[in-house]
Structures are given as C-alpha cells and as structure tokens.
C-alpha cells in the first residue's frame, strides 16, 4: 500500500512522500476512531437497553443502525450558546483541549503487526503524557462556564484524575518492567505466543488496577461524579450544547475506546492471537485462527468496551470520599507491592520475568 503510493508519487521529493504517507495514516486512524466512537454510542444504548429489558434505539435505519448519524446531525446544526458572563475564549478552547489529547494518544497504539502511526521508543511515556493532558479541557470548561455546577464538576474531576493517574502510571511501570521496553510494539511482541505469555496472569493485580483506574480516568460510571446528573446536573459540561458538547462527548468515548485498546495491548497481547500456542499456523482452515492481526485487537477491545457498558448498567455511583479512598489507599499500595514482588521475581529469574 505504502509502496504503491510511493511509486505513484515519485515526482515528489522523498521527504514529502514520507510526510504524505504519515498524513494518510493519521487521517485513516482518526476517521476510524471517530466512526468507532459513533457506533460505541449506539452500542452503549443498545447494550444498556437490553440489560434493562428495553429495545434501545430502533427507529432510524435498520434496527436503529443510522441513529449515531442522526445524533451527529442534530448536534452539529444546534446553536452554540455561550453564557453571558463566561470567559468566551476559554469556553470555546476547552472542548478542543479535551478532544485533541484523546485523539493524539492513538498515534503510538500498535494496531497490527508492524504498524503504529508513530513508532516511538518512549511510547508508553507519551501515552501517559497524553492521557494526563485531557484534564485541561475539563478544568477549563468548568471554570470558563462561570457556573457553580460546572466548577464543582471540574474540581471533582481534577482531584479524581490526579489520584488515579498515579495508580495508572505505576501499573504501566509494572508492564514496562515485564516487557523491558517503553515501545508499545515491543511490549506486544514480548507477549506473542498465546494466552500463557500474556501479561494478564503474572500482572493480574496491575491489570485490574489499570482497567479500573482507566474507568475512573475517563469519568465513566460508577466513577462519574464529575457529571453526576442527580447532584450537579451534568457537571463540567452543563453550559455546553450543540457542536461543543459533541466534542466533549467524542473525547469521552475516544478515551474509553483508547483505555479498552490499551488494556488489550498491554495485558492481553494486543494483535496477538489467543490460539497462537495451541494451533499450528500450517493447519488447514483453523490455522488462520492462530495468525496475529487487527481482528484480535478489535475483539479484545470490544470485550473491554462491553465491560465499560456493563459496569455502567450494573453499579450505582461511588461516593466521592470512597473514590478517593480507593484511589489513594487501595490502588497505589497494591501497585507498589506488586512492583516490588515483580522486581524480586525478576532478579531471582522466577516465572515469566526474565
């Protein structure tokens, strides 16, 4: 594909072709992520609908399949209302600041063997940096709206994200100790060869901490005190409507899919097949199940995305002080202890830590 493009454009200087290929990759990944976001909203409404014995959206298109596009159209044509005493400039910048890190983080995610938009050596650090930037959009939205509900939501969200980011960072430290690399592609390759080589078993506590912190970090139920409809209306985005609200929505779902994908990449072997150790690639018909590919990453991501929705339909909202206790007093000690255990095991060459 890339070679074909390079041949076709050989009248351009080589740097320009490189830049063009990168641009195509960026646009492709972004478009796919945005489409996934659109259908994640449909999935959420359907799944929670079935869990609550309802139909979910079923009017627009076949079984409601066109519902996301109807929603987007509605949000885009709505008027953007800017509150009178809001800080106009920051009010309009905040949704962009929420959305950009959520999309930029996708740059280092290895989607299938040998492909990531940017194959950074410090990929894991880049991810941490990008996910920690998303908080600016929320704080600024809360402050610039000049509304007390929005400010309360922003404060809650900021405290929560700062608390869970630390546990998340420590969980990632465990992953990079096991893989011996910060490069996400290398981390996936280290887990190649079936379920037994995945990091989920040796790093089970870190896996749980990472995924639950990820839910807290994206402000999803049961950690959605930043929105808390019953207490502070809609939290940091009370004053937003139309396209600006759509951007917050897009950022939240892009982050959700990102966390689901990263959990799959870091702990479940990314694009690696779960049957890789069991089935020989040369076998007829079933051999194809052992091949690594985007399909496996998508399947694992879908699994975690489903858990996100399942949790939302199942659990009531956490109380604020319980959220703080879970983050600071439970998760951080758990990760610290497991990093210590891992260090001792890897020094003694026990188990999968070599």
């Amino acid at each position, binding site marked *: 594909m890339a070679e074909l493009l390079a041949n076709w454009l050989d009248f351009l200087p080589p*740097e320009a072709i490189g830049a063009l290929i990168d641009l195509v990759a960026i646009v492709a990944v972004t478009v796919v992520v945005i489409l996934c976001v659109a259908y994640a909203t449909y999935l959420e409404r359907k799944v929670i609908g079935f869990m609550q014995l309802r139909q979910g959206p079923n009017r627009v298109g076949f079984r409601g399949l066109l519902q996301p596009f109807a929603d987007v159209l509605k949000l885009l044509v709505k008027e953007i209302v800017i509150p009178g005493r809001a800080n106009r400039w920051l009010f309009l910048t905040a949704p962009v600041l929420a959305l950009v890190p959520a999309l930029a983080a996708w740059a280092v995610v290895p989607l299938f063997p040998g492909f990531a938009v940017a194959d950074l*050596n410090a990929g894991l650090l880049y991810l941490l940096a990008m996910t*920690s930037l998303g908080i*600016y959009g929320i*704080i600024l939205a809360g402050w610039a709206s000049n509304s007390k509900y929005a400010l309360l939501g922003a404060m809650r969200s900021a405290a929560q994200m700062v608390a869970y980011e630390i546990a998340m960072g420590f969980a990632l430290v465990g992953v990079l100790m096991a893989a011996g690399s910060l490069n996400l592609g290398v981390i996936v390759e280290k887990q190649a060869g079936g379920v037994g080589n995945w990091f989920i078993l040796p790093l089970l506590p870190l896996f749980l901490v990472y995924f639950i912190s990820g839910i807290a970090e994206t402000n999803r139920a049961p950690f959605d005190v930043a929105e808390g409809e019953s207490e502070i209306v809609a939290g940091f985005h009370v004053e937003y409507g139309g396209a600006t609200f759509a951007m917050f929505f897009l950022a939240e779902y892009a982050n959700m899919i990102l966390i689901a994908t990263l959990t799959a990449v870091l702990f479940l072997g990314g694009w690696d097949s779960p049957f890789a150790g069991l089935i020989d690639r040369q076998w007829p018909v079933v051999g194809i199940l052992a091949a690594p590919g985007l399909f496996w990453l998508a399947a694992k991501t879908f699994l975690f995305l489903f858990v996100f929705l399942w949790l939302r339909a199942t659990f009531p909202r956490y109380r604020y002080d319980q959220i703080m206790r879970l983050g600071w007093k439970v998760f951080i000690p758990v990760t610290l202890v497991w990093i210590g255990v891992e260090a001792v095991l890897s020094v003694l060459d026990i188990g999968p830590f070599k």
Partner: protein
Amino acid sequence: MQQIPEIFPLILFYGWSGLLIAAAVGVITARNPVHSVLLLVLCFVISAAIWLLLRAEFLAVALVLVYVGAVMVLLLFVVMMLDINVERMREGLTRYAPLGVLVGLLLAAQLSSVWWLRRSGLEIAAPADSLAFEEGNTQALGTLLYTEHLYAFEIAGYILLLAIIGAITLTLRRRKGLRVQQVSEQVAVRPESRVRLVKMKTERDE
C-alpha cells in the same frame, strides 16, 4: 533514515523559540491569572517541542508528563480557587518596583555573563550527541543514571521521599472527637447483625 534538509530544523527552532518568548511575555503581562497559567503551559509544551528537535524524546515527554500533566494542573487548580482582585494587586506596585527592577537586573547580568563566556571561547557544555545511542536516549539515560550517577540519583530520591513525608506530616491533623467511618467495619457487616427477622402471623384466625 530520511534526509531532512538543513534549513527545516532551523525554521522550526526559530519559529518555536519566537513563540516560546511570546508566550513567556504573555505569562507576566496577562491580566487574568488563569490565562497566565495557560500561557505557562504553552511555554512548557513549546520547550518540549524544542527538545524533540534535539532528539531528546525522553526529556521532552517527561517535561510534558510532569510539568504540564501534574504540576500545572495543581497550579491551575489553586489559581482558579483564588479570588483575585486586580485593583488591590496594583496598589503594591510602587512599593515593590525597586525589588523587581533589582531581580530583573540580576537575571539580565546572569544571562549576559553566559553570553560573554561563550564569546570568550570558553566551552560551557558540549552539545549532546544523542544520535550515538542506538537504543534511544531513554535507555541511555537510564543506564547512566543507574551506573555512573547512582549515588546522586538515590540521594535525590531520598530527598524527594523526605519532602513527601514532610508535606504529609505538616498537613496531617489528628482532631479528637471526629466521627470517621471505619471502612473495615463497614465491609465486615453481616445482615444478621443489622436486621432481625421476626415471624409473625399476618392475621388472627377467626
């Protein structure tokens, strides 16, 4: 490796440097303190970009992660909570102006001394040859920190640990008579200890 024309990094460097200086000027001239904090964030991000030009990817990402992602968030948090009256802050201007001018002059003297040392041919620091590391500079930095500079690194770690403990002890107050929830007791609760089921006849037999 792609061949990048020499002029391109130069354009990026001067463009970003110009933006950096403009943002830094903005930090001290913005009327709204929240705008100042955001311009400071912009300064950090541009500095990270300039470090990326030097291929110091670890430093660049760490700068964004630590300063933009953590320190500035807390600073922004504090600034938003402050009720700042710009008029009242102006009052002290004439009183503190001499001190400000003094500090400014000292900074200018320091900067010009660096420039002067460079002019007199003294080599202050050799530019890092970051391309020499095949494994990427994250690994190179780690190897250096944990071998050659191990003691300095560990001492810095202990100082930070002490600072954390100090900060916690300073803010920790044990107040008497505070009704705190005992989470372990809450978790250990069984229905039998809270609810007594009583069998009763619903109606009297007639």
